């Protein structure tokens, strides 16, 4: 629906906690994160229009260690819009966002690890009118889903494993 739409480069930072809930499944863990997520897009007309959104995100992921240095993750990311550069943007865009997460990481057991992740939004950011050239209101638009590809580095502050069993 949106024309001349392009992705923008952005950033995220936050804290990540990893739990090991199953005694007999040591290679399965739960990752819980608190992220400050900067997302957005741009539209290219005569000038570029940048739309930036700051989210507080809470991914909940199931992590499976394929090898000692390689893991895959999947789960959901719940986000709350905290601010935007768009005038009255919090009235225009939905304040809640939810996405499915798929990712992989390497060197999880070391102090510095790397991850790559794709977050595919499943709830539309925008609920708006469809207005034709004459000004008729022809239904509603539920569009604009956050799709983010991220790569990053994790620094391990605490090397101790958090077990959720005795």
């Amino acid at each position, binding site marked *: 629906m949106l024309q001349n739409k392009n992705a923008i480069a952005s950033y995220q930072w936050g804290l990540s906690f990893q739990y090991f809930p199953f005694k007999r499944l040591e290679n399965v863990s739960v990752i819980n994160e608190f992220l400050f997520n900067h997302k957005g897009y741009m*539209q290219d007309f*005569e000038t570029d*229009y940048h739309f930036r959104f700051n989210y507080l995100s809470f991914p909940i992921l199931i992590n499976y260690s394929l090898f000692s240095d390689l893991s895959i993750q999947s789960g959901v990311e719940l986000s709350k819009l905290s601010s935007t550069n768009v005038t*009255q943007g919090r009235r225009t865009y939905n304040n809640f966002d939810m996405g499915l997460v798929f990712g992989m990481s390497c060197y999880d057991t070391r102090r510095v690890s790397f991850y790559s992740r794709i977050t595919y939004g499943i709830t539309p950011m925008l609920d708006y009118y469809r207005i034709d050239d004459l*000004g008729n209101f022809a239904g509603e638009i539920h569009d604009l889903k956050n799709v983010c590809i991220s790569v990053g580095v994790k620094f391990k502050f605490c090397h101790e494993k958090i077990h959720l069993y005795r």
Partner: protein
Amino acid sequence: MKKYTYIVSLLLMFGLSSCEGIFVPDPIDPRLPKYTEEGNDVAGAFVDDLFWKSVVECHFSVTDEPQLMLLPQKDSLILRFYGSTLDKSASIEFYLKGSKVTQFSDLAAWEGKKILLNGISGCGIYNDDETSSVFRSQSGQFYLKHVDITRKIISGTFGFTAIDNTGKIIKIKSGRFDYCDPKIRGESREDE
């Protein structure tokens, strides 16, 4: 000397200030203002491929605030939106016939109505002040979607095809407006 500089600065500040509305970009096409019913004092439309936007400027006691001009003797309502296309002055006007409007509250009867701009029930005019061209509508519509009597807000949309006296045709597309307490000429007092 400092005193005079201060006075001149103050005069310039008050005299040449512009009173722009709140431009909320349309999420589909950010060149246009979003359709709102908040009284943001903005209007916008495409004139062919160019973008017309409302401009409100105040010069001392003269102001270009959007005007709602009522002509009850002719049983017509004129809405005039001042603005610019490519930073050159241009206004859009609507002549809506058959109206019984003597004060703002009478507009409530128009809420939700679509008026055809065919020259019979209504007419849309695009004034290009730069070239002094006047384009009159052949077809199209004016939709007064929302009227808030309490907050004195009018919001709506418009779109029409217009022609000037040389035969040049333009299309006014995706027009929308949202104004709070527009200036009304010829309005009778509410307490009368």
